[in-house]
Structures are given as C-alpha cells and as structure tokens.
C-alpha cells in the first residue's frame, strides 16, 4: 500500500478557496501533490453528480471547498451548495458511496496555511482508506449489464 | 454523588488549624466526605522541580485511589495540592501515552473521571446556599482577600475565577458580612516553596503582601492556602525582622471565618494554633 498515490480532485470556488490556494503558493507552504484543482465560479455552481462521475472515473477522494458562511462572493451560493450538499450526502450514504472520501471545507482567500492543511489531511486519510475501487466496479458492472441487455 | 477529601500533608501538620476548621464547618453544615484511603503526598514543588514524571505519578496515585473508591468529586483544601492534582489530570488527559506510562508506574488504573474542587468551589457549592440562615455573628470586618498563586494560575488549565483581580473569595467573605477591600496583592506570590530554603525571599515577598493589607486598613488577611498561611503567619517574626516592622494583622482561613460567623468557638476552628494572635474573634 506504501506506493499508493491517491488521486484527489478538488472542486473549489474562484473567490475564496482558489485564491486561498494561490496564497498557499505565494507563502511557499508545501503540500501533497496528489490533489488537483478544478475551478468553479462558486460552490453553488458545483453539480454534485460530478462527484459521482469523478469516483466512477477513478478518483480516490474529493475535496469540495468554498467561502466561509456569509463570505460568499455571490452572497449565498455557498449556502445553497451547503443545503444541496446535505441532501446529496444522505442520498450517497443510501447508495453506499463512501462519504469519508469527500472532504467539505471552507477555506478563505486569507487561509493559505489552512488549504495546505486540508489537502494534507485529506491525502493522509485517503492513503489510509486505500484505492476506491468498489464504486468504480459497481458502475462498470452495471454498464456492462446494460450493454448485455441491449 | 460520593464526595472525597484529600487533606494533603500540611493539613495534618503545620496547617492543623485549617484542617480543624474545614471539618468543623462541614460538621456544622451536615456535609459528609470520605477521606481518600491511604493517600500520599502530592509531591508539591519539590517533585516538579526535580522530576517531572514523579510530579505526575504522585498525584495520579491519589486520583486513582479516589476513582477506585467511587469518589465522583474530591475536595482539596490545600491550594498547592489542588494545583498539582488539576495539572496532573490535565497533562494526562492531553497525552494518552504519558497516561499509560504513569498508570504503569503507579500500578493502578487511572481514567481521570473525578471532579476536583478547591475549597472555595466547595464552599460555593455546599455552604453558600445554606449560609444566610446559619449566620449568627456576621463577620463585620474589613478583610484583604489573598488568593495567592495556585488557586487561579495556571488559569488556562484551572479555569477557575479570573486570573487578575479574582472575586470568588471576596464574594464569599461579603456574604459573611465582611467588607472586602480593593487589594492589588491578591495574587502576588508569597514565596511559597522557598519558605525554609530562602526565608529571606519569603520574608520580602510576604512582607509586601502584609504591608499593603495593613496599609489599606484591613482587619485581617483571608486565605485559602496552607502554604500562604504559613508564610504570612508562621513566618511573621522573620518578616518583621526583615522589614524592621511590627505587623500584627492576623491571617485567617476562609473556613475559620465561616466557622466564627456561624457561631463556632475560636478553639473549634483552630485559631489558638496561629502564631499571630487573632484578636478579632
């Protein structure tokens, strides 16, 4: 397991976490290189079905991070994201997706060190959990079956 | 709820007066507590000065025995012992590895479940609610409430009263009818553990504490710590010699003041054991 390099995708908002991650860079704080960032205007824009697509395509872990409550650049996007997130989480739990593999956090544009911390904690956790194969297998299997049935 | 008491070494010897007053008022208020069986010394200043592990092991043994005997809370009248016990509890909670090591040293299980009360917390919880009806002789004196170091510091760990200008003892004394004066020396150090090895420093520091209380017209200094008491009372001749003064202000324990206010005899609360004569009773 020691050579397992987790693939972690981070969905972040442009105004807080993306800028916060920029600050991590400007401050030269080092963190694990396993995380790759996808920029959104706002966490409110993130369609959580995309998380499932990411898992199905081999992501081992996911970070969703935006502005702190009340700090949203667009007033309330992060609030709506949070609300949808709560619903989505229950649905995922129900479907048997391992929600330990998703980190939901708030990192502001001023929290460069926190971003490094979120990344490192997540990568360590995912490293312990190991590669996420069960969901991928499940999806591929059902696709195969569909193909068979056609 | 089973309440235990950890008297500590001083209360069996140089602070017998304190011990007597604690037990006297407990009896008067119908309060019961169980002495922790076969308790040992907490190690005091000496242990943490010379050996950190020992300074944690000694209090841990006390706490472990208390747990074994099902004591949910422990009253610790001596402020120094109180501090050692609380700090130990804090350190062992913070560091599970250290806790395991200490458990091995003391050959006992320790979980850290007992609540540790200092004397004022005990008074607040059990005596203050019934105090008013019991007072027969209001303690109508001006008092300087002296908390010393260990009742309030380290404040982040003890989390008791505010660290600057604490008020709990002042409040108890005012409920007895006393007037607590503004007293900036409340939490200044008396010299504590240097009593025997550096009597000169203790005389200097304690002298300042006494001088300010006398200067502000206090009739007595009220304390809640046997170490403070012995430095301010037993060391009075040394203090007067050091400063070339004749300070006469008595130093009494808060428990003695309560005893007197509810009509117990000076004898009963141990006043005759003081070095500095207590004329106010």
């Amino acid at each position: 397991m020691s050579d397992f390099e987790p693939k972690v995708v981070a969905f972040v908002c442009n105004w807080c976490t993306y800028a916060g991650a920029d600050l991590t860079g400007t401050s030269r704080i080092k963190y694990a290189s396993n995380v790759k960032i996808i920029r959104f205007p706002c966490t409110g824009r993130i369609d959580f079905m995309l998380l499932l697509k990411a898992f199905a395509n081999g992501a081992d872990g996911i970070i969703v991070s935006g502005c702190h409550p009340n700090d949203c650049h667009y007033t309330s996007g992060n609030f709506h994201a949070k609300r949808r997130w709560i619903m989505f989480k229950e649905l995922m739990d129900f479907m048997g997706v391992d929600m330990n593999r998703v980190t939901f956090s708030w990192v502001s544009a001023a929290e460069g060190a926190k971003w490094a911390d979120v990344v490192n904690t997540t990568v360590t956790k995912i490293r312990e959990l190991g590669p996420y194969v069960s969901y991928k297998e499940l999806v591929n299997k059902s696709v195969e079956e569909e193909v068979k049935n056609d | 709820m089973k309440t235990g008491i950890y008297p500590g070494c001083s209360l069996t010897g140089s602070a017998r007066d304190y011990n007597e007053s604690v037990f006297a008022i407990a009896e008067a208020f119908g309060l019961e507590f169980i002495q922790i069986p076969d308790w040992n010394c907490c190690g005091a200043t000496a242990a943490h000065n010379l050996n950190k592990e020992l300074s944690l092991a000694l209090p841990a043994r006390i706490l472990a025995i208390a747990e074994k005997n099902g004591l949910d809370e422990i009253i610790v009248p001596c402020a120094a012992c109180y501090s050692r016990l609380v700090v130990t509890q804090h350190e062992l909670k913070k560091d599970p590895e250290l806790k395991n090591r200490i458990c091995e040293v003391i050959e006992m299980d320790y979980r850290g479940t007992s609540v540790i009360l200092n004397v004022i917390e005990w008074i607040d919880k059990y005596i203050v609610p019934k105090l008013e009806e019991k007072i027969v002789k209001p303690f109508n004196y001006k008092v300087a409430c002296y908390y010393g170091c260990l009742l309030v510091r380290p404040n982040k760990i003890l989390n008791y009263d505010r660290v600057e200008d604490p008020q709990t003892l002042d409040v108890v004394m005012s409920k007895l009818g006393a007037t607590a004066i503004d007293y900036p020396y409340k939490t200044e150090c008396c010299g504590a553990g240097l009593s025997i090895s550096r009597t000169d420093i203790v005389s200097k520091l304690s002298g300042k504490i006494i001088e300010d209380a006398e200067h502000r017209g206090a009739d007595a200094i009220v304390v809640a710590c046997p170490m403070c008491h012995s430095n301010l009372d037993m060391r009075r001749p040394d203090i007067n010699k050091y400063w070339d003064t004749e300070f006469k202000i008595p130093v009494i324990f808060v428990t003695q003041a309560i005893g007197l206010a509810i009509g117990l005899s000076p004898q009963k609360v141990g006043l005759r054991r003081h070095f500095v004569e207590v004329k106010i009773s």
Partner: protein
Amino acid sequence: MARIGVFICHCGENISATVDCGKVAETIGKLKHVAYSTEYKYMCSDPGQTLIKDAIKEHKLTGVVVSACSPRMHEPTFRKACAEAGLNPFLCEMANLREHCSWVHEKNELTTQKAIDIVRTQVEKVKLNSALQPIKVPVTKTAMVIGGGIAGIQAALDIANTGHKVVMIERSPSIGGHMSQLSETFPTLDCSQCILTPRMVEVAQHPNITLYTYAEVESVEGFIGNFKVKIRKKAKSLDEKICTGCGLCTTKCPQKKIPNEFEQGMGMRPAIYVPFPQAVPNRPVIDKEHCTYYIKGKCKICEVVCPTKAIRFDQPDEILDLEIGAIVVATGFDIKHADFFPEYGYGKYKDIIDGLQFERMASASGPTSGEIRRPSDGQVPKNIVFIACAGSRDPAKGIAYCSKICCMYTAKHAMLYKHKVHEGRAHVFYMDIRSGGKNYDEFVRRAIEEDHVNYIRGRVSTVFERDGKLIVKGVDTLLGAQPVEIVADMVVLATAGVANAGAEDLAQKLHVSYDQHKFFAEAHPKLKPVETNTAGIFLAGACQNPKDIPDAVSQASGSAVKVAALFSQDMLTREPLVAVVNRYAPPMYSTCVGCFLCQSVCPYQAIEREEFKNREGKVVKTVAKINEGLCQGCGTCVALCRSKSIDLLGYSNNQVHAEVMALLNEY
C-alpha cells in the same frame, strides 16, 4: 477541428526550478488537437506575448492555454494578447503551474506529472470554449460615500469636485469622525478641528454632495455602475428645514446626565443634543433611548421652548431608495476598550484613561478646556505614565497586529502633557517605536530630546492604586530586565485600534470580504489597496486597518480617482461569464419546464420569465430567461436546474466534465 496552442512559462525559475518544463511542453505537444506547444522563460514579458501572438497567426490556433501563474494574476494580460492577434479572448485559458504546483511541491517526477495534468485539463476545457462578446451595461454617475470621517469627507469632496454627484451617509448626528475629537495632530501639532471643520462645512455646502446624517445603509443590491441602495434615515424627531439650530432646546432639556459619546464619557449631554459645537449639520437630534418623553410619555419641554416649532415627536424613520454607480466605504475604526486588561485597572481606577480620552482632555474644547487633570480629583498630574501596546501585539488578551498609530500619538500625548505641565514628568513604556513616516521619527526624537519624555523599553505588568496614586510596575529591558516601579498620578493606555462595531454587518450587506479582525479586505494587498473584491466598491481610511490622517486622506483621494475613472465611461464592459437558459425552435422553445426554482436561489434577481405565444397570441410556454446585465455568473441556478436547461458560459457542464475526465483518465 480544434487547433490548440500551449505555452509553458518558466517564470524565471519560479516554475522551472521544480517542474521539468521541457518535458511538460513535449508531452503536451503530443496530445491530440494540440497544434503547437512551447516553453519560454517569461511568457508575460513583451517577447513572450509576441511569441503567443505569432503562434496564433502562424499555426491558425483556435484556442490557447498559457501555463504560467494564477489566472487571478495574468489572465487579463494573455487574453488581451490573444485579442490583439485576432483570437477571441475567451478562447484563452490559463493553467496554474506556479501557485498550485511549482511553489507548493518539491522537485520530483510527481510534480512534473501534476503540471502535465493541470495543463491537460485546460487543453480539454479550451477545446470546448466558445467565442464570447463582452456585455455592456450603463453607469449611474452618482457615488455613495459611507462614513463621514476625514476619509469619507476627502473622498466625497474629491469625487464631487470632478463634477459627479455624491451621497454621503453618516451614522451619527454629525460628520467629522474621530478626527473631530482629536486635540492636535502629529507631527506638526496643528489643531485638528482647525483643519477639519472647514472641510466639514464644504461637504455640507457642496452643490454636488447630498448629506444624510443619522442614517445607515439598509441594503445594497445590484452591481458596479448599477447599485440599488436603501438607506434608513433615522428619525431625528425634528424638522430640519425649520430648525435654526439655535440650541435653546438643548439647554432646556431636563435630562442632562447622559454620558457624552463625543467626550468619551468624560462629560454629560442632554437627551436632545448636538454632539459638539462645530457639528455639521448643526442641528440637534433627540436620543430616543434617553429622552424622558419617549420613556415616560411626558415632558416635551423642547417642543414648548422651540421658537420655530420644529420638534416632531411622531416623526418616523424614512427609507430612501438610491441609484448608485460606485460606493466608497469609509466607516473608520474604533478603539478597543481596555477593560479586557484587568491587570491595567482600566474601568476600576478613574485616573487610568485611554488615548482618545486623553485627546479630549488635551483639546481646548474638551471637558477640561485643554487642561490635563485627573478625572478623580481634578488635580494636575505631576507624574504621568503612557503605556504603549495596551492591547496591540498581544495575541493572548488583545489583538495580534500592530495598531500603527499608537507610537506616534503616544509621543504626541507625552509632548502635549509636557507643554501644558512644564514641571511634570512623563514616562512612556514601549516595546518598539514605530515612527516610519515623513518627519515622524524626528517628532519622537523631539519628545525625548527636547521635552525630556522618559522612554522606558519594556512592558508594564500591572497597575494598581494606593493612597490615591497609581503604582505602575514595569521593567526596563535595556537594563537587563530590571523591574521598574513608578508612582504615577495618571496612566494613559494606548489602546488598540479595532474595526468599527457594525463593520461585519455592513460588509455582508455590501458583499465585500473582511479579515478575521473584521477590517474590510482590499482586493490586493499591494496593487489594489483601495479596491475591494466587489467591483465598484472602494475603501478609504481606517475601515481597512488602523491608519493615521495622512494615510487615510491619501487613500480617500485614491478611491475618489477610481470612482472618477469609472464615471468617465458611459457604458461598462463586463465579462460575459453569465448563465443562459437554452432555446430551441418551436414547439420546444426550451427544455426549461418553468419551475422557476432558479428564481428563488438567484442572489441578483437576474431570472425573468419569458412567454412564448402562438400565432393566435396565446401563451403556450413560459420559461426562465436570464438578464445578462444582472447575472454575475455564480452558477447556482445551473447546479440547481432539474431539467439541465441552464448552463454557465465559461464554466459549462461540458467544460467542467471534460476537465474532470482529463484529470482522472490516462492519455
């Protein structure tokens, strides 16, 4: 067929020190649809940009990925370069190899691999980009300045003098702010009120400025050039048009024991009051919390004595709707009251005061007419101690930052004291003397050398009272940390400057960010110090961090120029990254089912209804339509839309999907 050009920047060595740029360029060059891939030392330099432009033309590129620093840094630069080469600027994307990769990882194989992955995502994205045209919106050429202190006054006058309209909102009954409370100002020792009050009058009389005092911002909607602001004009219980400001009511008011805010609680005022004699506007207000009539329903003496019958007890608060093009926030600061520092005895001992109280005491118009006197007994203190950093640079009990102004005002206070009490002794306990600024250090030296102020380097541990004197126990760290005890008559605490109460609330109304200390955040700490991250909202003065007068005024003028520059345009161009609801030919019109859930979550009220009618004029379908002038592109509606009928230009479903796939799948 897409032809993508990829340009890898070394950023000097900032990227190339940890990322193998050559390998990145080579690997990317082999990708499908990548027509050109190269590396260069400084892409943002002129030759770098030329390289891009030439490549666009030479290779007929349909999309560009510049792999360099954060897009927050140079996206506009490269998009402009693309536009100059004839490529639609929105067909250019940036891959962040510096902040998100080379600066945060060690030099190794994995880091270079991550760089390749990052570039690939942008290549996949840019393939799906579409040429977009900037959106044009009109500009309302009226500015709003929030806060009437020196920064707000300067900003308002500067904007007004460019010929544009300004609305000034001030929370208290008069403009003037903290500066009107000050005695004399460093480093020149000129009288604060003498230089300020003419400016206050100018604001009141300027034909381009509308002043609303006793007013607060209720809500702000809209965006740059087009804000819709509601302000609440609190009832002054007085008809300002009739009131002559004679002041008779204030002298007759029977309630006279209210601590005077302007005098920092060192004097009293009546319930109907003008905060200070030079107030602008010079009209009283009734403090409803303390007025006997409002409390008990009886009194009305002011109404009886008023010669012009201007009192209006039943006056309601008024809500005004304003159309505003730009906003300057100048809400100032407050001082941290020293009660959190019990060892210094503030609040317990009368003769321990804070710096602002000392200002009032030293002011000729203050409660002691400019004489330094102990609040306890009115005696002139012979020995005075100033404690610097009483709250600042103290993470444990106060605030971690340096309040910047205290070193200078403490030197000034000590100097003023020495000028007024020649035989007195002034001591200053300090940690460092921070006197950067024109003639600032010279000023401090004058206090020490000419006025013989005794500067002691060390902090004070405790202050207590004994026999009517204050015992100050400090230390002289320059003498080997020797304890020092001073028996003083008065102690002045240089308390920290903190954000104004209500700053957080206002920031949320304005949608601008603020830091952990509740100070408003600038858009960039160096290059955008007066902008906020919300376009069209600017900062002036101490609402951003503690500042002295010259700094506050400079920044105010800076923000005024930003407003003027904005107002020099009739139309604004905006990035066209907005949401769109799809449209198809009839009879489908759109996949939108008209549930309008999107409407309920849109923070900008940008979602409208569009009705489609058949030939008979009958409405056959109602679907959502997005007003691109109002939409800010947050995309919340996109994520929420159940029928997937909304998409966000620049961040379309296809684009983000392509990015995720590029990240995860091998190539």
